[in-house]
Structures are given as structure tokens and as C-alpha cells.
């Protein structure tokens, strides 16, 4: 179709078609992107998509965008990107080809756009054909009363020789480094102290010496005593930080006293 034909056809465009074009704009939200819109516009050409006039389509699209602007309809960015690209394509299609210019020809770009439209159309039709097929739960049905398949589950535990050797190696290795393993017997950890105090702190309504809170059996042996004091001291600092208790010390090296913090 030559350009002149197209102009002539534009003039012939009936009022109803123009109204339809306006309806398109109002309905811009209904389009799934610029390609969808182009496909809708292409239908007005009433030709096979393979013979579509991309130039005419570009005109229609740009017209659409202009009308949308006039009506102050905000178009999403991708519609505007497509408009810019189509404006470029249109100018390339209208101007005589510049032999010095590199890259794809305007015809190649137009052919690609036509291909995209045809492919989208084909996928639409394929989707429709797919949905028109007999569907499970609508046209055909599965067994309504499946019979239980009982599963006789046998658990078989396995281990390889390597697992066994690794386990043993791990144990023996632990043994070899025994001197460097902390002797846990005389260690009271901060976690233990925290755990312990959390249960007891409710009873500390008035100021009392931290040392009176040490666990039984941890004050005779000096190593145990040191560890438990340190652990409990660290624990009360942590609890004070969390706002669970209050701490005070009258003087340097004076006993440290703790008290439950009343919740306000």
C-alpha cells in the first residue's frame, strides 16, 4: 500500500472508526503494553499481519499518543519509548535510504515489528486454542474415590566405613588435644548465669549483694568461685543493659548490689 493510498484511506475513515479510536484511549488501562496496543490498532487495517503497513501503524500509534496527551492521560514510560522508536522508524521509512548509514535498514526494523505482532497474535490464538481444549475437572474427570495406597515404610539406617572412621578420628582428635580443652567442671558460663538469674531475679525486690546470688557449691573451690563470680557479674551487666535490673556499687571494690527493676 502506497503512502498516498493510506492518506486517502485516512480521510475516508468513518466517524464511528474515529469514535472507536477515542474509546481506545479511554481504555488505555486495558492494554497490556504497547505491543498489545499496536496489535489492536493493526486490526483497523483489516489485512493479514504479514502485509501490514508498518508506516501506517506507526502513524496510528503516534496519533494515539498525541490524543492521549491532549486528553492529559498519563501514559506509562514504555508507551512513550515505543512512540519515540516508531517516530524514528517512520522518519527512516519516509526518507530515502542513506547508504553511509550503518546498522539494519528501516525495512528490516519494520519487518521485525511485523514479526513481533504476528508472533503475539499467534500466541494469543494458541492460548485460546489451549483453553478451549477439554480440561480436567471441567470436561473430563479423575477417579473420584481413589483407593488408599498404603505405604509400608521401612527405614534403613546406613553408615559407611568412612563415616565410622571419621567419627572415630574426630573422637581421637578431641582426645589428643585434651590439654587445650577447657575443663568445664570449674567453668560457669555467662549463659548459665543468665539462665539462672532470669529465674531468680523476681525475688530481688530490694538491694542485695551479688555474691549472695552465687549458686551453691561454687564458693568453696577458688577456681569455681572465680568463674561463677565472673559469670554472674557479666550476666548482671547484660541484664542491666536490657533494663531488667539495677546495679550499684558504693565504692571501689565494695560489694556490687543488684535489684529487680520495677516495670513502669
Amino acid at each position, binding site marked *: 500500500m502506497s503512502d498516498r493510498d493510506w492518506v486517502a484511506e485516512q480521510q475516508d475513515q468513518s466517524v464511528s472508526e474515529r469514535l472507536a479510536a477515542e474509546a481506545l484511549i479511554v481504555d488505555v488501562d486495558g492494554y*497490556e*503494553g*504497547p*505491543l*498489545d496496543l*499496536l496489535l489492536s490498532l493493526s486490526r483497523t487495517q483489516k489485512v493479514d499481519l504479514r502485509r501490514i503497513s508498518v508506516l501506517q501503524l506507526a502513524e496510528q500509534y503516534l496519533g494515539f499518543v498525541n490524543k492521549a496527551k491532549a486528553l492529559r492521560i498519563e501514559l506509562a514510560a*514504555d508507551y512513550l519509548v515505543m512512540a519515540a522508536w516508531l517516530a524514528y522508524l517512520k522518519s527512516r521509512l519516509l526518507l530515502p535510504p542513506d547508504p553511509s548509514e550503518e*546498522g*539494519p535498514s528501516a525495512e*528490516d*526494523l519494520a519487518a*521485525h515489528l511485523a*514479526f*513481533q505482532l*504476528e*508472533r*503475539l497474535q*499467534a*500466541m*494469543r*490464538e*494458541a*492460548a485460546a*486454542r*489451549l*483453553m478451549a*481444549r*477439554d*480440561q*480436567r*475437572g*471441567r*470436561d*473430563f*474427570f*479423575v*477417579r*473420584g474415590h*481413589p*483407593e488408599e*495406597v498404603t505405604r509400608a515404610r521401612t527405614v534403613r539406617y546406613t553408615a559407611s566405613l568412612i563415616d565410622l572412621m571419621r567419627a572415630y578420628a574426630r573422637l581421637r582428635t578431641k582426645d589428643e588435644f585434651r590439654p587445650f580443652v577447657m575443663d568445664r567442671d570449674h567453668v560457669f558460663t555467662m549463659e548459665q548465669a543468665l539462665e539462672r538469674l532470669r529465674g531468680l531475679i523476681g525475688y530481688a525486690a530490694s538491694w542485695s549483694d551479688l555474691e549472695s546470688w552465687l549458686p551453691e557449691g561454687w564458693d568453696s573451690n577458688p577456681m569455681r568461685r572465680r568463674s561463677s563470680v565472673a559469670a554472674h557479674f557479666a550476666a548482671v551487666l547484660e541484664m542491666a543493659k536490657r533494663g531488667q535490673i539495677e546495679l550499684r556499687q558504693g565504692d571501689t571494690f565494695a560489694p556490687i548490689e543488684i535489684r529487680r527493676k520495677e516495670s513502669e
Partner: protein
Amino acid sequence: MTDQERSLFDAPPIAEQERMVEAILFAATEPVTVADLKRRMPHGCDPAEALAYLRRRYEGRGVRLVRVGDAWAFRTAPDLGHLMQKEVVEQRKLSRAAIETLAIIAYHQPVTRAEIEEIRGVAVSRGTIDQLLEMEWIRFGRRRMTPGRPVTFVVTETFLDHFGLESARDLPGLKDLRAAGLLDNRPLPGSMQRPEDEEEDLSGQTELFED
């Protein structure tokens, strides 16, 4: 005694095997693979042969034996769907975007999200893919060996089962679409895509359908 020899003595007659396959498939709602049938039947059975007999037996009946990928199931004949109103489960309405995305995945698989977006000309929303994944109609395929190693999507056996397809090759109009070049991944002329990528993409698509 070798397996071969033993099977000659032990395998039940084929008519009996047919009964067994019939019972197993009747009891199941979901398709059962040939391998699974073999596991559940006595040693030396040939479920594939039994299935062939059984399929013929149910031709034209009210229920039919259908193949779904590598698996088999009994399904009611589609022409009797109108009698089943009582069994119809309300189906979730799929959006137009979801239906199109599904069709693109089915016809172009394995396909990346970028390719779906290129075909539809619009971004695919996270929710659309999620919905199809949740329905188990699509799943992740192999990663594409292109920069960024994007994941691909393919359709599942559940999809095939739902639409009564034996395999993705049986999608309606697939041959025509391919012949028309509409399943090609044709990049925009002059775009940056390297030709090697393209070739790989193409082989990926055909691979699935040709076997």
C-alpha cells in the same frame, strides 16, 4: 538363575498383568509412570504391553486410558462431561496475562522470563509466574547458558494432564507455528545479541520437542 530366566517362569500371564495395571490405575487419581507400575507389579511383568492391551479395551468406553508424559491414568470420556456437574470443582479464573504467559511457556519452552516479556511486549508480573508455579502447571527448567545464566520455564505433567495432552509435542497447532517461524527467537535487527546465543536458544527449543 538369571533375571531373564526367572521372569519366564514367574511373570503372570499378560491378561493378569492387564488386570493389575487396571487396578493400580483405577485406584489412583494422579497418573502413574510405567516405572512405578513395574515397581509395584510382580517381578518380570511388562506394564507397557499390558497398557497397550488395556488402552484398546477401554476405547470408546465411559472412561479412557490416557497417557500423560511418561505416565498413564484413567479419565472420564470428555463427551460425558455434561453428566459430571456434581464433580466439577470451581476453577480459579486465570487472568489474560497468565493464560498468555502459560501459552508462551508451553509453545516456546524452555523459555526465559526476558523472552516471555519480549513476546508479550510487556513486563511479566511476579504474581503471574508465581500463580502458574503454584498451580504446578509450570516449573523451572535448566538455566540458559548465556550471560547471567537466566532460569527457564517449562510446562509440567500436571499441565499436560489438565489439558489432556500426551506430551508438549501435542500442543494444538505447534507444527504450523514452528513452520511459520513464529516460535523462533528472532532478535531485533542490530541488537546486541550475539549469534552464538541465538543458536543455543534455538537448539534448546527444538530439543524438547524432538525426541
